[in-house]
Structure formats: C-alpha cells, structure tokens
C-alpha cells in the first residue's frame, strides 16, 4: 500500500505515539499518520523526510516496525537544528512526514545466501528492519552475522534486542567500540576486526553495510579480499537532501541521485565515484 501523497513536497501530519530515548544523543519516534487509517508500507532501507514545525526538514531512515512498537519507527541522532527540534517532541505531538522514498535492501534476492550485516553507530537504524525481514523467513537464509561498531559503548543502539536476535533467530552478533573505559567487557577496535570472528562463506555471501564512508570503504575492501562479490555488497550513501524526489539536485553523487537511485546501492554501481574526495 502506498502512502497517499497529494503533492510530493507537502508533508502529511503524523502523531508521535511514543518518544523512545535510545542513547545520550539518539532517540526514536514511533509515528502514526494523523489522517490516514491505512497501515504504512515501506521497504527496509527506505527513508522519509521529517518536518519539525517552522524549523525544517531532514531525511531520516526508517528503523522499524520493531517488537513492542507498532507504528513507523524513525531513529534520529541530534546533529543539527531540525534534529534538535525533533528531540523536543513529546508523546502526542505532531510532525510532518513525506515518504517513504528511495531504494531498499534487496532482501528477496538474498535467499539461500549467508548474510553479513555491518553497521557503524546509528547506521544500524536502517538495517534493523532488514534484519527483521530476514527473521520473518529465517529458514530461507544461511548464516547471518551482525558486525556492529560504534565510537564508544554509550553510542550503541538497540542493544537490548541483541540477545533475542542471537537466541531466537540464531544470528551471530559481534560488537566492537573504538574506545572504552575499563567497565567495557566487550571488544575494542574498528568494526572490520570482527570479520574473522564470525562464520560465513564469502563465495555465497551478501553484505549490507551502513555507516560512515570511511567505515564502508574498509569494510568493502575486507569483504572483497575474502572473496565476496562486488555486486553482492550493498552500501548506503548519505548526502544533503531537500526534496527527496530528484528535483533539488543536492544529493548528487556522480550520476546518482541518492534520494531516488539510492540510498542503497550495489557497490559495483557506484565504485567509480566511491571514495573520491569531495565528489
């Protein structure tokens, strides 16, 4: 079912059903449409444009439906004026929303393969609905490994779900942080250091990666080194966005419009431009 979009540039009002504090600077909004009774259809990996009254609009990836929450979940890190305004929202408040927009993780093309999911920081947000889509048909996939890294333990999100993911859905979860104090019992190091610590068959593996470009660059390099095919590596790109429908020109990355051709790309589609400074 598609969201009814009267004009693609005019937001629809959504109600904050639940404001969920995730970390010191990150929160999730569980949103319901104010005027529409239909359930919301989106593909894992897609994003919306969230409008804070009078302040502005930001592209935010959809991070679920997730258990115990039933609307459209969006997970947001406070990094600027609009996200700071969204951080002030309370249950029952209104936000504007346009979307969903953009490409999705190609879950149905991953059947029978091992899956490596690599996330950096809030990069886990658009991967969570992909994980739940995999769990929905767990038997159709081989090994599933989540390699998750963040700057420090306090920047990790969704950690209370990891145990269920491991025990109920039989996936491997490896968490690392760049730096930590002596209270941290887990691993320290960049996310790629977890790759040798999980089981998967590189020749039959699909990878989904979301994180800072530098993290994705090294992750792709390591996976390729092991023999994962370039066209089975999927990455997400981020750029400034104003319209999300290919009109404003801001999100161009080489020939791609991140908003409509992405944000998820097969690595081989964008590799010519990936990693070029200031492209």
């Amino acid at each position: 079912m598609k969201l009814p979009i009267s004009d693609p540039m005019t937001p629809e009002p959504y109600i904050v059903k639940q404001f969920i504090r995730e970390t010191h600077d990150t929160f999730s909004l569980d949103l319901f449409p104010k005027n529409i009774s239909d359930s919301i259809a989106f593909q894992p990996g897609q994003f919306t444009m969230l409008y804070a009254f009078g302040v502005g609009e930001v592209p935010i990836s959809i991070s679920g439906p997730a258990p115990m929450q039933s609307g459209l979940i969006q997970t947001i890190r406070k990094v600027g004026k609009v996200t700071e305004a969204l951080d002030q929202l309370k249950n029952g408040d209104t936000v504007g929303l346009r979307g969903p927009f953009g490409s999705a993780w190609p879950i149905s093309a991953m059947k029978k393969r091992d899956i490596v999911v690599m996330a950096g920081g809030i990069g886990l947000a658009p991967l969570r609905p992909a994980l739940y889509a995999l769990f929905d048909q767990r038997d159709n996939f081989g090994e599933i490994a989540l390699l998750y890294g963040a700057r420090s333990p306090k920047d990790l999100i969704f950690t209370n779900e990891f145990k269920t993911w491991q025990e109920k859905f039989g996936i491997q979860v490896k968490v690392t942080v760049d730096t930590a104090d002596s209270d941290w019992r887990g691993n320290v190091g960049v996310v790629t250091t977890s790759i040798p610590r999980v089981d998967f068959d590189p020749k039959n593996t699909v990878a989904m990666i979301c994180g800072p470009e530098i993290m994705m660059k090294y992750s792709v390099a390591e996976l390729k080194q092991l023999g994962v095919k370039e066209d089975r590596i999927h990455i997400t790109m981020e750029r400034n966005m104003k319209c999300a429908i290919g009109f404003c020109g801001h999100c161009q990355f080489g020939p791609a419009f991140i908003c409509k051709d992405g944000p998820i790309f097969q690595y081989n589609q964008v590799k010519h431009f990936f990693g070029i400074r200031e492209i």
Partner: protein
Amino acid sequence: MIIDREGLDQLISVLIGMGFQVVGPTVRDEAIVYENLNSINDLPEGWADEQEGGTYRLKRRSDKALFGYVVGPHSWKKFLHPPERRLFRANLKGGDFEIIPEKLEEPKFAFLGVRSCELHAIAIQDKVFLGGEHVDSTYKIRRENAFFIAVQCGQSAATCFCTSMNTGPRTESGFDLALTEILDNEHHHFIVEVGSDQGNAVMEKILHRQATGEDVMEAKKLTEEVAAKMKRTLDTTNIKELLYENLEHPQWNDIADRCMSCANCTMVCPTCFCSTVEDVTDITGDHAERWQKWDSCFTMDFTHIHGGEVRASTKSRYRQWLTHKLASWQDQFDSSGCVGCGRCITWCPVAIDLTEEIPKIRDSENQITHPGNEARHEIP
C-alpha cells in the same frame, strides 16, 4: 505564411485577448531580459548585443530589427520553474499543527522570441521535472499551458556554440509558431512556420499572407549562414568518459584559481534546475511557511551534512557543475545538460569558458597517469 510588423503586434494582442500573459525580450538595465509585453513597442527595436567571455554590451543597430540580438541573462526557466515559490503553510495549534497545502496557480504564458537552444533547454528540463516517478506540478501546469513563439536566429553571439551541441541555430520542432525576421531595404516582415494546431488557430486571427517557396528558402538560408559563421565549438566526442576519467585532473585546480564560486553560471544556465528550501516563521512563531528557491551547486551549504560540507573547495564545486552538465546528465536524463547558449561564458565575471577548459583536459588526457585505484578506470 508571412506577417508584417503590424501582424506581429496583432499576434501579441490576440494572445493577450486569449488570456495569455505574453512575455518576451525587452531592454532593462542595459540588457535584454524577458518581461511582460503589451505590444511590439516593448521589443528591443534596433538593438544588438555584443558578447564575449565576461562581457555583455548592448549596441545600436543601423536598422529597426526587433530580434537582432541573441540570448541575455534571463531564460524561460524563470517562468516555468519560478525562482521562488511557497510550498505550504503551517499553523501551530497547541502541540499540534496543521499543514495548509498551496493552491496551484495556473498562469498561461505565451513566450515570444524563444531561440532554438532555449527550446532544447526546455525539453531538457521537461525530462527533469516531468520524466520521472514524481512530477513537479507547478512546472507541469505552466509547461502545458504555454504557447511558444520561436525566433530563428539571424545572428549568433561570439559565445554561441549551439552547432556543436546540435541544438540550433534553426529550430525544427517544439514551437507553436516560429518566426524568421527578414529585414532589408525594402522589407521588414516575418516568415512564420506553424508547429501546432493551436499555432494554426492563432494565425487565422492575424492578418497574414502566404509565403512563397522563395521566402521559405530565404528563411532557411539565413540560419544556415548563422551556423556557418559560428566560431566557438566544443568537441563532445566521448565527453562523458573524458570527464569521468579525469575527476582528479590538474586543470580543475587551475580553474579553481580563477573561479569565484559566484554561481552566475548556474543562475543564467537555462537547464540548471537545483533548488533549496527555506523555512520561515512569523514573529509569533505560530505561523510557518516553507519556500522553494533556486539554488546553486557553487554555494557552500549546498552539500552540508552533519560534520561539514561534502564539497568545501571551489575545485570540487566547479568539477561537479561541469561534470554534471556534460557527463552525468547523460546518465541521468539521456541527454547533455548543455545546449551551447554560451550564457555561462558571457556572465562569468572572470570569463571561464568551458569550450576552452574541456580541450585542456582532453589534450593532456593521454599524458596523465591516473591515481592508484584501479576501479577509477571502470566507467559505469
């Protein structure tokens, strides 16, 4: 068909009578710009323009030609894709707010004096705003309502290179009517080509006479001469591959030393379509509006994301603009983003000329060793 000056004046009044807002060339602030026309008296009679890199100057002609110049700083995109428009309003009601969608205006423009390169530019913007999954409704309604009166170029500016881009000087389609201005010691009239049923219907309301085969030949000869005399050229052979392969070419640094990142080239370009949005609130904070405005890839905040600007340097912004225009546009919209109108050359304050810069990259291309990454050599 042939019309005289009186016929042209009548054409304007007939179109106004039909509810069209007739816009076309007129002189303002020492330049030829596109504004409302009420009669042929508003047209730039007896004016010519002199253009070169970084130079634009109006000069008196010795005759009374009405279209004796080329293209100025304006293009028709200011009517079809307005420089600013309100997207919606919103009113605060407690913790709640309501969004008030914008009512769609439906202006009816008649564009008089559209050049061949400009018709091609409009066709290119059609692909941007109408060709994808989403449609820009403002553009669509303005585009569908518009009546196009082309003018076949009787001269080119020194900055024109439409013959290289296959966009002129003669236009063959995309117009309702096309005029060729014939001016000699004895005559001053316009040979009219009809390009649509609506064009035909309008002509029936205007005093005209039939053109002879000779008249039509004369009109064709005029644009052929313009094409033959055009000086500037751009070799577009494999230009996409050339630019994709040379993203780190030292010439970008050389251009960046001159480029002022002023955004003039993007404002005058008839195909540049980028926009931004601005959110405003009134003094009470209870009423908000969101506006869409023309934007340029040369501005600093164009690529702002958390953590900074993606394209902070002038080098990267110029590279983005030219590579988009001539290369990635082909991947995105299946055509070049350049129509060879020369505006970006004329209106660049430091006279950066893409027809000079591209050969500098092309000529040295074989001598450049590419940086390490083997992936650079694979063109998507």
